[in-house]
């Protein structure tokens, strides 16, 4: 019951970074509970993956050879079977799109509580999770009753596990039930004329711009600065700019010298795409907007006042 089980995530032949971060979080939890850390890997090149997953702190790796890609039925069956078999009380998964496609069902099937999107935790007799609410404006601590739970951890909050471990590697036999959901393929989206990932300076616009007509204002700013225009998701969802201009988790990861966020709140999925920028500037009316937490320079003000003045400065 003290043991912890982490499930690896891979896509198109490669393990995803969030896997190693989840392993670090899992190790932390296993230490606090006085248990072992088990890692499950389901599907794909399980032998190759098992070798890569053998990082410091991993005690056992269970390889479930089933299918090539993520299939939530297979993942759920494999992880719940293994959790029972090794008597793991805690399951730690990445809070990724695929994590969210099976972690809640897994918790339900195991009959244990789930806490998603953890940014930190404490374990002392019981689990206390730190997570954000109200669009990252506040942080909360959440106590979990009981000793068994599923926890999903936010990407980028734990360092990736490194080194080479001495885990036992075992092929695990699991009955995978027939699935009523079948993956038929993948599709790349985006493409288009401009690669925002190549730009040295990005002027990025968010929902603070309010109307499509107002985009002209930030376009003018981008022109004046010799910058490329990018955007947060709602701008793209509205069809105001094409998908290849979207910065974030489901858009592009950008690392320009200067990133100017205009009317963007700084939701975690947006920040995931731009936090590596050298210098981050934020213009936002809300002094509590989370974008200011990662900004180097901030103006708390109305973009409709500030941007025209800024254009004048460079005209």
């Amino acid at each position: 019951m003290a043991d912890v089980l982490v499930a690896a995530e891979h896509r198109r032949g490669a393990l995803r970074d969030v896997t190693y971060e989840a392993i670090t979080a899992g190790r932390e939890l296993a230490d606090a509970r006085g248990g072992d850390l088990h890692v499950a890997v389901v599907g794909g090149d399980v032998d190759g993956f098992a070798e890569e997953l053998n990082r410091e702190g991993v005690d056992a790796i269970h390889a479930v050879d089933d299918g090539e890609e993520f299939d939530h039925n297979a993942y759920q069956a494999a992880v719940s079977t293994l959790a029972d078999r090794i008597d793991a009380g805690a399951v730690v998964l990445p809070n990724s799109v695929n994590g969210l496609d099976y972690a809640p069902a897994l918790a339900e099937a195991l009959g244990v509580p789930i806490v998603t999107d953890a940014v930190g935790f404490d374990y002392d007799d019981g689990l206390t999770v730190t997570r954000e609410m109200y669009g990252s404006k506040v942080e909360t601590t959440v106590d979990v009753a009981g000793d068994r739970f599923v926890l999903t951890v936010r990407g980028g909050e734990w360092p990736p596990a490194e080194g080479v471990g001495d885990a036992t590697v075992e092929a695990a036999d699991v009955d995978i039930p027939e699935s009523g959901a079948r993956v038929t393929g993948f599709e790349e989206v985006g493409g288009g004329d401009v690669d925002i990932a190549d730009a040295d300076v990005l002027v990025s616009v968010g929902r603070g711009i309010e109307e499509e007509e107002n985009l002209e204002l930030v376009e003018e700013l981008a022109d004046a600065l010799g910058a490329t225009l990018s955007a947060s998701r709602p701008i793209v969802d509205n069809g105001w700019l094409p998908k290849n201009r979207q910065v974030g988790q489901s858009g592009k990861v950008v690392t320009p010298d200067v990133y100017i966020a205009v009317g963007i709140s700084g939701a975690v999925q947006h920040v995931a795409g731009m936090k590596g920028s050298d210098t981050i500037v934020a213009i936002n009316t809300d002094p509590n907007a989370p974008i200011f937490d990662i900004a180097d320079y901030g103006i708390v003000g109305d973009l409709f006042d500030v941007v025209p003045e800024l254009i004048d400065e460079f005209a």
Partner: protein
Amino acid sequence: MKVLVTVKEVAEADDDFAIEGTDIAESDLEYDLNEWDDYAVEAAVQLAEAGIADEVVTVTVGPERAEETIRMALAKGADRAVRVWDEALDGGFADVASKVALFEAVVDEEEPDLILGGVQAADTGFGATGVALAERIGFEHAAVVNQLDVDADAGVAHVHRELEGGVEELTDVDLPAVLTVQTGLNEPRYASLRGIRQAQRKEIAARDLSDLGLTADDVESALTITEMYEPESESDAEIIEGDAGESAGRLAEVLRDKGVGA
């Protein structure tokens, strides 16, 4: 085919807010239809308009205040609504399993063929209810759906799931199913004046625990919020003060130093 849409009224904090105990002060919160659910409502209404759905019913867990938000969904074209609330839910934080217990009871009553909901709620950001519900009621599921094509005759939903980094996964999901939808799936409509008028006459059925054959034990939360605070900013952001002209001038200096506009 009957479509059930889970609709949540979410709270958003004002720019200035105070924390009272383990929540934001009521007077500093504004309530609205959850952005992601708006896309789910639109998807359901479009299915009705295409003749694929015969009825669109929304279900909400929330106090009477939530009816304002529910009317918005009705004004956009949902046929009727169910609102679940009970004193036992007042004040506490409902975990995923307790919400699922409530939705399960409504599903038993309504027997939908398809359930749509947002991928996450903007306030708590759990992103878990839809998928957990699917498991509880034995439906298939898919999370983070950003393209949807329902083939009712074949009993299959062809969906795209939006993965990270601009990759979409194409999946066929057998019905009945729960799909959690992503923004960008469609273009949610604004409620027309006519729609708003019609919504006044549509039914919002109120249900409490005993109506649903449940007890307070069924909705006892395993999670308790023990603290809420403003996160300590680790940032060393330099906040540029002054009116728009002054701050823009100072920012221009900073940008020029970085070689911008040169």
